[in-house]
């Protein structure tokens, strides 16, 4: 990881309001570089909203946030160059083939497509046989693997994963855990949002629990008090 | 084109001014009502 900034994420009073409800309400958070954070909480507790704000795609209604020292609003360009985001939509163009989608990933960044790396990525996620087929023919699991392959193409200091294990079969889940482990080894900071905590707890150093947009717990996975409703 | 001065035409003049007062007054009223309804 080229980034040496000790604090990966610093949030001060970060909030987001949709109409009358506060999806995220004055959230203060400090996450050091290299930590893996599990974001837990029932549906609608603000997990996805928080992650979306961290990608700078959703400007906060109030409060401020910094990722590796770059302000979420004013320096959104720099922030975007340092993160990956794997959400519910896989950002794949269904008319194009798997290889074309990965080439596009380079194209959007204005870089030349590195076909060797693309082939390597497809191999890692086990999509070599379907490399030349249009994504429209892919199952949800295969599409998720292709999205994971995209993360493989570019190393970023921060990776945001929203429900990483959904749509994946058992083998896919092992692949996801394996990749998460590798990212942690490379010193990347990770944020995994999910509501089924069993798969995520072993992977994370710390847990952030959200309820109705508010932080009810943030600390090491070990001493997560029982009564905190996950 | 018209040669002599237009005789009459008062009704257009009256209509124009009445309309102006009506629109400006009406808009002022709507501002006041909206202002009151939020208060």
């Amino acid at each position, binding site marked *: 990881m080229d980034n040496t900034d000790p604090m990966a994420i610093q949030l001060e009073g970060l909030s987001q309001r949709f109409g009358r409800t506060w999806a995220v309400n004055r959230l203060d958070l400090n996450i050091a570089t290299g930590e893996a954070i599990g974001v837990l909480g029932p549906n609608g507790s603000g997990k996805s909203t928080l992650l979306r704000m961290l990608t700078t795609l959703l400007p906060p209604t109030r409060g401020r946030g910094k990722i590796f020292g770059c302000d979420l609003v004013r320096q959104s360009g720099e922030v975007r160059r340092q993160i990956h985001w794997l959400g519910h939509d896989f950002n794949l163009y269904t008319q194009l083939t798997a290889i074309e989608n990965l080439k596009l990933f380079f194209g959007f960044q204005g870089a030349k497509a590195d076909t060797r790396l693309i082939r390597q990525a497809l191999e890692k996620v086990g999509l070599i046989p379907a490399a030349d087929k249009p994504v429209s023919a892919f199952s949800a699991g295969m599409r998720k693997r292709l999205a994971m392959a995209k993360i493989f193409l570019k190393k970023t200091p921060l990776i945001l994963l929203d429900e990483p294990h959904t749509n994946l079969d058992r083998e896919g889940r092992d692949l996801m855990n394996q990749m998460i482990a590798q990212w942690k080894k490379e010193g990347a900071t990770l944020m995994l949002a999910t509501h089924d905590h069993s798969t995520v707890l072993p992977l994370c150093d710390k847990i952030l629990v959200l309820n109705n947009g508010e932080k009810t717990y943030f600390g090491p996975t070990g001493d997560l008090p029982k009564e905190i409703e996950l | 084109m018209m040669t002599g001065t*237009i005789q009459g*035409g008062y009704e257009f*003049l009256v209509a124009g001014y009445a309309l*102006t007062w009506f629109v400006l007054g009406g*808009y002022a009223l709507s*501002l006041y009502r909206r202002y009151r309804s*939020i208060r």
Partner: protein
Amino acid sequence: MQNSKSKIQSFIVLMAVAFFLFAQYWGLFKSPPDQLMGHVQKLMYVHVPCAWNAFIAFFVVFISSFIYLIRKNPFWDRLAASAAEVGVVLTGLTLILGSIWGRPTWGVWWTWDARLTTTAILFFLYVGYLTMRSFVGDKDRRARLAAPLGVIIFLNVPIVYMSVRWWRTLHQVQSSPSTVDPNMVLSLRLNAFAILFVLILFIYHRYQIALLKDKQEEAL
């Protein structure tokens, strides 16, 4: 007890109404009728000032949209919204007055006169602006989308005027009023400032409504 602020406000409103009535009176009774168009010509004292002030309102929209693009301060967005609404009301009035004036003078309800046509296009441009604003619920997003629109629309105004004038010279419809004697100019100017006063008050109060609405939304 009416606090002092609203007492001053109602005083200013009274002043504006008085000045407006005086200007209207002056235009209607004090200035001479036009040799060619007779008393009908006095419609000019409402039609032209409304057009001028509508244009001023749209210029305010342009400037505040531009500043919002740089400063991102919600004040400018609210000001742009208020000025746009008042501008559309005045432009609508100008168009109807133009048609009322056209009827006795040229026997038609609508003439493709360059200024009148430009005003009509302005009307549609800013109705579009207001419609766009009404479709976006979230206050911040609305401001972020409306600001560039407010700038781009105004950039089109000179081009519209030029192209419509070239288009009209191809069809030779005489449109400008006959010679204007000095006394008329005074009535015109009086009414122009009177309506400017009204315009400023309208924008100010419409701004207060926008401010209250935002505060109400914020307070939830």
